[in-house]
């Protein structure tokens, strides 16, 4: 699994997500959120669009999605998400480490509001299982 050295620290194009009522309701139903307010993990939606969606098609990484496991996940919220706002997420590859035939990829994502204020930050560790 040779890797070009410039991968760590590289960023992907930002993703925008409008927090509309119907999306919030669908997400809340899926995770059993009974209210009030918006489910805090709705920030996963722009996080995936900003990070995972790019990672699995990044030729420098050559990741086969069927071999990806989710190892760890952390969120820090600065404030609750509110209906009607538009969030912008941008992801950075913080580290790539190979260990025991597996690759550990750490992605950091910042989710900001229209004013550029930080709403939440996320850190996701993906584990890519090796061949066989």
């Amino acid at each position: 699994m040779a890797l070009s050295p410039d991968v760590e620290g590289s960023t992907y194009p930002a993703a925008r997500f409008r927090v509309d009522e119907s999306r919030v309701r669908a997400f809340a139903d899926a995770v059993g959120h009974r209210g009030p307010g918006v489910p805090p993990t709705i920030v996963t939606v722009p996080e995936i669009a900003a990070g995972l969606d790019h990672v699995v098609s990044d030729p420098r990484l050559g990741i086969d999605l069927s071999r990806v496991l989710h190892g760890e996940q952390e969120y820090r919220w600065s404030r609750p998400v509110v209906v009607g706002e538009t969030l912008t997420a941008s992801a950075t590859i913080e580290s790539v480490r190979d260990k025991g035939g597996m690759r550990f990829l750490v992605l950091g994502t910042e989710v900001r509001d229209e004013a550029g204020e930080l709403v939440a930050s996320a850190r996701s560790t993906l584990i890519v299982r090796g061949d066989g």
Partner: protein
Amino acid sequence: MSVRFDDLEVGRDLPSSSRLVTREDVKAYADASGDENPLHQDDEVARAAGFPRVVAHGMYTMGTLTSWLVDWLGDPAALLRLQVHFRAPVFVDESIECGGRVRSLDPQTRTAVLEVWVRAERDGAEVWPIRKSEAEVRLD
């Protein structure tokens, strides 16, 4: 109902809650989150990856844990941080139980660190899809 800082004691268990993981909810989560990995929708794909049937997204399980936590807190704004370790898969058609315990309290900031977990029973044995994980919350 919402919990208050002064109600908390280090070592106290939080009231746990169980939820059946349905295929429909996992499909709804895929659509709502945008994570359309077929591992979470197609039994054949799941079996090819070595699982008995469709696997729930780790983030579905973390989202369910978050809903349980927010339900107990009474307010999403009380949740400051959540960090989880995914230790085992969750399969559709099984029940998961969310729970936790107060690990430490800081009266100055009225914040608490909670240990949180997700447990399931499978073939007569306990499995821990999420364990040794923690949440930081701020309460009135």
